[in-house]
């Protein structure tokens, strides 16, 4: 039984009991407990089922390396699958569920896979399920999917909140253990901006569990003084519960902070993503213990030796009355000693090494613990929990020498420095045979933007496992850093540590060495993904020799723990099997995050209405109040139409369009881009930007212009107004404003930097109101103060004036073919003017119209729309806009591109109008015309497509424009458009449907 001991537990508060439930059962724990410690304290040893074979699984480790103890926490909007029990703090009332079983944890039908496991080795599915062809999708795949997958996903929306936080520091210390705290303490007086992050709720790392004394006092005292001292330095920030997740280029680091759970559960800030820019990183992440590979090593009760010690000391939880120990190094003796000291029994330590001499083994022996050299475990006894073990000779094949009864087995296969963050940006590792570990290769470090090493591993992260070695090693790094930053160090006092000689860890991987094939299939390497020794054997046998291949073939290290405890064992097995040194086998690639981070944390506050900025015009609220049906247009929102009570969208659009044709309508055109271009060379510059001639434009006049990219493709269009000799105002499409402004600046800054031109994107400065319709002038004249007659303001001209007491610019331009004015006014006054116009227009039944009516109106006139008639492959010539392409200019952007053979091909598709023969329904959007002949690919050749199609309320019939092969040459021809197999016939006609002779505007 795993139980809570009467005393002990440095991080729990026995005065604060907590209740929680596990699979519906009410249990008790203490404040400070983790989910894992609380479950163990309640003798809940079976905590889940493995991924593939649904084997029973128990808590294995005490930190983020835990492969088995994953749970689903909470419910509803707070339901969270796959939570690591050993890193999750217990909260009052927490509902915990175990995962991956049906119908229950104890009785899981999925475990039939276990029985059939011999049939299901690594990669079995590549070799079967191929026939019949349909069976994979309909039979096998669903079955495989259902049995995989761990926890169930939440079904409710997340009710929690997340945010980000940027910081810039000189030094980021990762890990608040001994080495990290020591480094921070030594560097604090330099005044460098230091941020130290620790993933657990407490500081000190392994200090308290593993050492009684440090720095001349008890280790607890050293920790307290250190933390106190650090808190006096304003330049140092310590943060716990914050796991550093990833290191990116140029010193960018992300860390995931779990915020303490407030007592009320009413939607709070749950996590914070730190986005850190740091000059240097001190990596003090410690080391992670490895298990050993032996038969039955996955049975609940087999646990990491250090983990057992942590639960004992931090939480006062016993692993059971009798704990046997299997180790290849001295560190695990600490567990045996600690258990014995507290009064629990350690029947046996099996040490795979031949000779055992270190300080700790000696101490253990003195305490009366039985220590057996050169021994291993032949087989673990028990099904859902350990009941005992068979001891064997390590060098043999596993014959049982003796049966030992025990409830727990503490395993240690040595330690692996926690080097993940060193490697995210390409820091290399090397295998150190004498220390049996991959350590950072200081010759091949990750570098910063200057090519200098920017991560500095210290302590166990750099492979120093003995406490007494750490201060000197930290000092070296600290001195180097201080020098790099050119900060003097005051006299460093190195804390003293007891000198414990530990003997070398032995490179034991398989226990026993001569394990038989049948047993290799009962020996686990990766617990969560059910990768066994035999799977690795099989991968190698089949030629998956690269470690990357064996990883992908067996899924070793691909589980939620990312192989923190299993990868090195796997690599060693490959190395043994192939007879290739560890360094040659190498590791797989370390990738962020170090520990998984919620996707919600990554999204941060950018959700719902903050998902993306919505740009609003000053008239937005008026539109809203008038029932606008919105449409996103780039980052803006614009009314698509305004719905009257009970009206459909189509009806609204038709009504609005007709209103403009019959009396007058008004449009919020504020979103159109407005770019000022001024300077001695402004005219010359615009002559390069636009295909037509802007230099000849007279002040006071406007001209419609086209812009092409260097390929010659039409990119944007708009009206240019010449304000004075050296100043132009260029209107762009709504979506084009920023891009075109950037485009202009690009040419001015990078190509023609000697030209004297300034630009400014002043889009938001003005509200632009379009007034269009036969009675537009009458409405405006009611507001008085300026002359707007044909003589005073002819078509394609503009002038300043006053309307309704406001200073305005009025442009006489038209995108609807009607008499039309665009009024530009300071944004702050725009809404007021809008309302005044609306008032004034009432007697003419003025109505606001939205973007869709605008489109209908322009289509009736055969005007093109960027994004409809153009798509990045269309040149102005295709659209019959040759008149807007200057033949006189030597050069403009796009001119050269348009010379190329494909762009001068006489067969290009060109713009025409399309008249549906039966005239009932508009042509569907985007349909293609197909010809009688076939193309090279064996299907009917396409010879045209619809680019815009609408119902014209004015003409009371459908209208459409399209691009058709040699279109204008084929007037009157009838094309067949394929609409979902149905052929719709349409005649090629002139695309100016309404008022082709321009009598209205």
């Amino acid at each position, binding site marked *: 039984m795993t139980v809570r001991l009467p005393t002990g537990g440095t991080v729990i508060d026995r005065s604060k009991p907590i209740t929680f439930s596990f699979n519906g059962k009410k249990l008790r724990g203490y404040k400070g407990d983790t989910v894992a410690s609380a479950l163990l304290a309640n003798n809940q040893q079976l905590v889940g089922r493995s991924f593939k074979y649904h084997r029973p699984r128990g808590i294995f480790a005490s930190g983020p390396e835990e492969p088995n103890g994953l749970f689903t926490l909470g419910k509803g909007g707070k339901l969270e699958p796959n939570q690591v029990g050993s890193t999750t703090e217990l909260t009052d009332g927490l509902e915990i569920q175990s995962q991956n079983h049906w119908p229950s944890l104890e009785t899981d039908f999925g475990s039939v896979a276990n029985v059939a496991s011999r049939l299901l080795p690594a990669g079995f599915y590549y070799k079967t399920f191929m026939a019949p062809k349909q069976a994979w999708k309909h039979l096998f795949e669903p079955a495989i999917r259902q049995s995989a997958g761990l926890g169930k996903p939440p079904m409710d929306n997340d009710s929690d909140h997340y945010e980000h936080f940027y910081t810039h520091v000189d030094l980021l210390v990762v890990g608040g253990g001994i080495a990290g705290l020591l480094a921070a303490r030594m560097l604090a007086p330099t005044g460098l901006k230091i941020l130290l992050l620790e993933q657990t709720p407490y500081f000190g790392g392994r200090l308290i569990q593993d050492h009684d004394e440090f720095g001349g006092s008890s280790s607890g005292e050293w920790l307290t003084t250190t933390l106190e001292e650090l808190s006096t330095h304003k330049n140092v920030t310590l*943060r716990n519960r914050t796991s550093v997740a990833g290191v990116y280029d140029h010193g960018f680091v992300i860390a995931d902070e779990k915020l303490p759970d407030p007592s009320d559960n009413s939607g709070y800030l749950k996590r914070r993503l730190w986005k850190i820019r740091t000059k240097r990183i001190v990596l003090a992440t410690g080391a992670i213990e490895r298990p050993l590979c032996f038969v039955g090593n996955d049975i609940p009760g087999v646990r990491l030796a250090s983990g057992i010690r942590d639960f004992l000391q931090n939480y006062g939880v016993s692993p059971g009355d009798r704990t046997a120990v299997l180790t290849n190094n001295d560190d695990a003796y600490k567990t045996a000693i600690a258990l014995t000291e507290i009064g629990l029994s350690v029947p046996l330590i099996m040490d795979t090494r031949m000779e055992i001499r270190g300080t700790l083994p000696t101490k253990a022996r003195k305490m009366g613990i039985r220590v057996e050299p050169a021994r291993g475990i032949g087989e673990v006894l028990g099904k859902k929990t350990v009941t005992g073990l068979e001891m064997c000779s390590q060098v043999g094949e596993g014959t049982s020498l003796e049966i030992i009864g025990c409830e727990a087995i503490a395993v240690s296969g040595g330690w692996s420095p926690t080097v993940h963050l060193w490697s995210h940006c390409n820091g290399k590792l090397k295998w150190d045979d004498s220390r049996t570990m991959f350590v950072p290769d200081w010759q091949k470090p990750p570098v910063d933007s200057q090519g200098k090493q920017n991560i500095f591993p210290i302590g166990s992260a750099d492979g120093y496992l003995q406490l007494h070695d750490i201060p000197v090693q930290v000092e070296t790094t600290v001195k180097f850093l201080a020098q790099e930053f050119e900060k003097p160090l005051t006299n460093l006092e190195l804390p003293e540590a007891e000198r414990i000689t530990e003997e070398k860890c032995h490179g034991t991987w398989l226990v026993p060495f001569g394990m038989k094939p049948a047993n290799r299939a009962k020996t686990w390497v990766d617990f969560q993904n059910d990768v066994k020794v035999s799977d690795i054997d099989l991968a190698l046998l089949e030629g998956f020799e690269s470690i990357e291949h064996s990883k992908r073939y067996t899924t070793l290290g691909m589980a939620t723990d990312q192989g923190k405890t299993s990868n090195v064992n796997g690599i060693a097995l490959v190395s043994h099997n192939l007879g290739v040194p560890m360094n040659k086998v190498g590791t797989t690639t370390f990738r962020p995050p170090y520990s998984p981070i919620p996707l919600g944390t990554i999204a941060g506050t950018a959700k719902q209405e903050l998902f993306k900025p919505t*740009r609003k015009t000053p008239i937005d609220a008026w539109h809203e109040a008038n029932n606008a049906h919105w449409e996103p247009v780039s980052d803006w929102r614009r009314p698509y139409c305004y719905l009257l009570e009970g009206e459909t969208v189509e009806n609204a659009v038709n009504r609005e369009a007709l209103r403009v044709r019959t009396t007058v309508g008004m449009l919020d055109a504020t979103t159109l881009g407005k770019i000022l271009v001024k300077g001695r060379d402004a005219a010359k510059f615009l002559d390069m930007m636009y295909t037509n001639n802007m230099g000849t434009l007279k002040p006071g006049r406007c001209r419609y212009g086209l812009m092409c990219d260097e390929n010659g493709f039409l990119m944007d269009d708009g009206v240019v107004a010449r304000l004075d000799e050296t100043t132009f105002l260029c209107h762009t499409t709504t979506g084009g404003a920023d891009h075109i402004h950037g485009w202009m600046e690009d040419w001015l800054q990078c190509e023609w930097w000697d030209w*004297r031109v300034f630009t400014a994107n002043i889009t938001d400065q003005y509200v632009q109101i379009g007034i269009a319709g036969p009675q537009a002038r009458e409405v405006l004249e009611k507001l008085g103060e300026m002359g707007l007659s044909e003589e005073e303001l002819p078509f394609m001209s503009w002038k300043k004036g006053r309307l309704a007491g406001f200073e305005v610019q009025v442009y006489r331009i038209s995108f609807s073919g009607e008499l039309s004015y665009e009024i530009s006014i300071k944004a702050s006054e725009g809404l007021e003017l809008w309302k005044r116009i609306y008032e004034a227009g009432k007697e003419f039944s003025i109505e606001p119209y939205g973007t869709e009516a605008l489109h209908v109106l322009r289509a009736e006139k055969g005007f093109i729309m960027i994004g409809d008639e153009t798509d990045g492959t269309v040149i102005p010539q295709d659209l019959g806009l040759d008149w807007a392409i200057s033949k006189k200019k030597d050069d403009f952007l796009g001119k050269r591109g348009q010379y190329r053979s494909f762009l001068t091909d006489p067969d290009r598709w060109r713009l025409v109008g399309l008249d549906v023969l039966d005239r009932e329904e508009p042509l569907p959007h985007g349909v293609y015309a197909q010809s009688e002949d076939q193309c090279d690919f064996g299907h009917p050749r396409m010879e045209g497509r619809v680019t815009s199609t609408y119902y014209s309320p004015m003409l009371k019939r459908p209208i459409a424009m399209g691009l058709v092969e040699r279109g204008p040459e084929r007037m009157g021809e009838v094309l067949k458009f394929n609409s979902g197999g149905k052929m719709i016939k349409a005649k090629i006609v002139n695309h100016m449907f309404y008022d082709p002779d321009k009598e209205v505007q």
Partner: protein
Amino acid sequence: MAESPAMGTPSLKLSDNTGMVLFRGELKSKTLQEGLFEVTKVKVPAKGRINSLDGLSIAWMSPDELLIFLPLGDVGKLIDALDDKLEGEETLIWDVSDLRSVFQIEGHFIREVLAKNSPADLNRDKMRRGTFRRTRFGQVAVAFWFKEETCWFLICRRSEAGYIQRLFEVSTQEGEIPSFY
């Protein structure tokens, strides 16, 4: 360390009465510098800085662009005066009072709130009094500077003011503010 600031979270409000004038020109030119100074009584700021005197500030936007802040009512006068003074110079001077929204932020922990949304280095030695930082807040372009630790200004495009306001609200209401700067 991780406690809520007792002084209360900062607040953000629109300041309506600020006029703004865009000034583009060759800022290295002596004539320009002197002309500007004569008209505004404020020296052309060094790069990345903002200079202020008696209600008029000049911010450095780019090597050839300044933004002049002054009371809204004085904008016309200033533009006329500049046009007069710099007659013949290559400049672009424009009333942009409505182009951007100006926010005033007051309270404590302003750096922290900004740091939730901006990648700018907000350390006190980098973001100093008189620093004018153009950067990003959430997903949009802004600039900010401060008069005092407890009184900052932020400008953004007028059409994006609503977004800024909401994001600021969310950044000050939800959960604690890490005391960092």
